């Protein structure tokens, strides 16, 4: 970097608008990796984070999958938490107020078994204050479609997004599953359903084997692969979608430092999300935001939007 040219007085703007969500910086923490915020309060100032996307929340309480639920893999990890959560009502009454009081920018993450469930959760959220947007996890098995994920069928994606949109005035951000043949088709379906932004990517479906026990490591057999291992796939999908779809993108998958975040921004992400990285460095969100700001100062980039998609040909 151009150390010689640093001008610390120079003002750079790292705030972004992600489809209606005003973020003070482009770095969010990803759903399921930051609990409900409180778990990390001793390590990072919650109000300084671009957005806190809370743990995936369903209509009713869920107990989650049987352990083991996590396993390490080369440059990655598998998780099969199984959406353990207290249910939307308890989230709104017991967890949200704390985050609001701390001044955090909160994005809810919702999941359901049916389109009706998604809509029902959205309408409960609509009746509350203090949530900046709804992220829709559409990588859950769709009961009505025989367990195939919502996120893998364009028609279903469009319908579930539209159903949520009709229940809320908040920005709606479907989170795309990477386990598909054609991510652009899915992104277009989400756009057609009325999405305000896209979050990508969720985890790749994977597994690990315990060769001593001669059985899968995870209690659930399969789990979601996250961490640096999946970064190349995430970047590719965001690149593809950025070229074809106009919606702003919340990009993530394996971000461990500000350089990784810049890769995502350069292929078209307006903001980034950090998941597994929180487990390694509990104040990573702040470090990455600061790194981006410093990079911009050193490279005389006044507005972060100048960088968004700059590597896309």
């Amino acid at each position, binding site marked *: 970097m151009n150390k010689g040219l640093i001008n610390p007085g120079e003002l750079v703007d790292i705030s972004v608008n992600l489809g209606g969500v005003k973020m003070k910086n482009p770095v969010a923490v990803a759903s*399921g*990796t930051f609990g409900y915020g409180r*778990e990390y309060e*001793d390590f990072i100032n919650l109000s300084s984070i671009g957005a806190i996307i809370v743990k995936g929340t369903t209509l009713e309480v869920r107990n989650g999958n049987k352990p083991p639920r*996590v396993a*390490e893999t080369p440059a990655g*990890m598998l998780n099969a938490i199984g959406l*353990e959560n207290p249910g939307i009502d308890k989230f709104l009454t017991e967890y949200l107020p704390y985050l609001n009081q701390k001044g955090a920018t909160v994005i809810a993450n919702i999941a359901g078994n049916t389109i009706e469930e998604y809509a029902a959760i959205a309408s409960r959220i609509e009746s509350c204050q203090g949530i900046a947007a709804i992220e829709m996890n559409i990588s859950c098995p769709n009961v009505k479609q025989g367990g195939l994920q919502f996120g893998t069928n364009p028609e279903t994606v469009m319908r579930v997004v539209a159903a949520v949109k009709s229940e809320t005035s908040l920005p709606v951000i479907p989170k795309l599953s990477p386990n598909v043949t054609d991510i652009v088709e899915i992104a277009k379906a989400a756009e057609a359903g009325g999405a305000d932004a896209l979050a990508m990517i969720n985890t790749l479906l994977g597994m690990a084997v315990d060769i001593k026990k001669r059985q899968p490591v995870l209690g659930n057999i399969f789990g979601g692969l996250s961490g640096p291992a999946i970064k190349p796939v995430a970047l590719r999908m965001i690149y593809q979608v950025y070229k074809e779809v106009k919606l702003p993108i919340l990009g993530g998958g394996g971000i461990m430092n500000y350089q990784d975040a810049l890769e995502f921004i350069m292929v078209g992400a307006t903001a980034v999300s950090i998941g*597994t990285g929180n*487990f390694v460095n509990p104040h990573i969100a702040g470090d990455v935001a600061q790194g981006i700001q410093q990079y911009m100062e050193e490279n005389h980039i006044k507005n972060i939007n100048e960088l968004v998609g700059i590597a896309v040909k």
Partner: protein
Amino acid sequence: MPSVGKGLVIGHHQVSDDMYEIEFILPAMSAECEPGQFVHIMPDMDNGPLLRRPLSLYDVDKKSGSITLLYKVVGQGTRLLTRVRNKDYVDVMGPLGRGFSLPGVAQNVLLIGGGVGIAPLIYLARALKELGCNIKVLYGTGTRSELVVFDKLRQIGVEIMPATMDGTVGYKGLVTDLLADKVNPSEIDFIYTCGPEPMMAGVAQFAKQNGIPGEASLEEHMACGVGACLGCARKLKAEDQHYIKVCKDGPVFSFAEIDF
């Protein structure tokens, strides 16, 4: 309050075939440490495995601001940790979790450790000693050379009863057999245990049968270490609906809470 920081390594040495002791300086963290809590450590800041590794507080010196860990080399992370040298920095998060409960008044306590499970019982013994407790430690390993903490225990001033599978020192056999054979339940007010699950199960059974309260320190694979990922889930009793999180709700649980 837990924190994350870089500890300056001031001592690191091999204590048995596959066990090491590492001591580092982190005054702010050290000041917060309670027996039974753990730290989440990065074996290598630049390379190596992705996730941190949970290791119990083995000894803490709040005066010098140091924390000591005792670890067994089992895989990639602990193997990498052995490479850390004096004057290097290790990246540590902690103290984490809910530790052992300490008695309000001096009691007769029994500490039962198996293998590297002895680690958290050392710092515990130090704390109990300060409270004036009368401490007996049963310590089981495979063979004499694996009994690595004698010096610490002697220095703290506790009664030690070793058990080795091969009988090279102390009782020959399982530490749970030693417990059944040689301990008079009526002389014990509270039991603390850490080690392999079958051992802790045996200890808990003994405690329950004799109406002695006690606590055990559990292990589960972890990602975050702070209750955020819900990865270290476990049912304490078979009939439970709810999964506790070992990192946040534990790692220490009372015998009454757990069915092994």
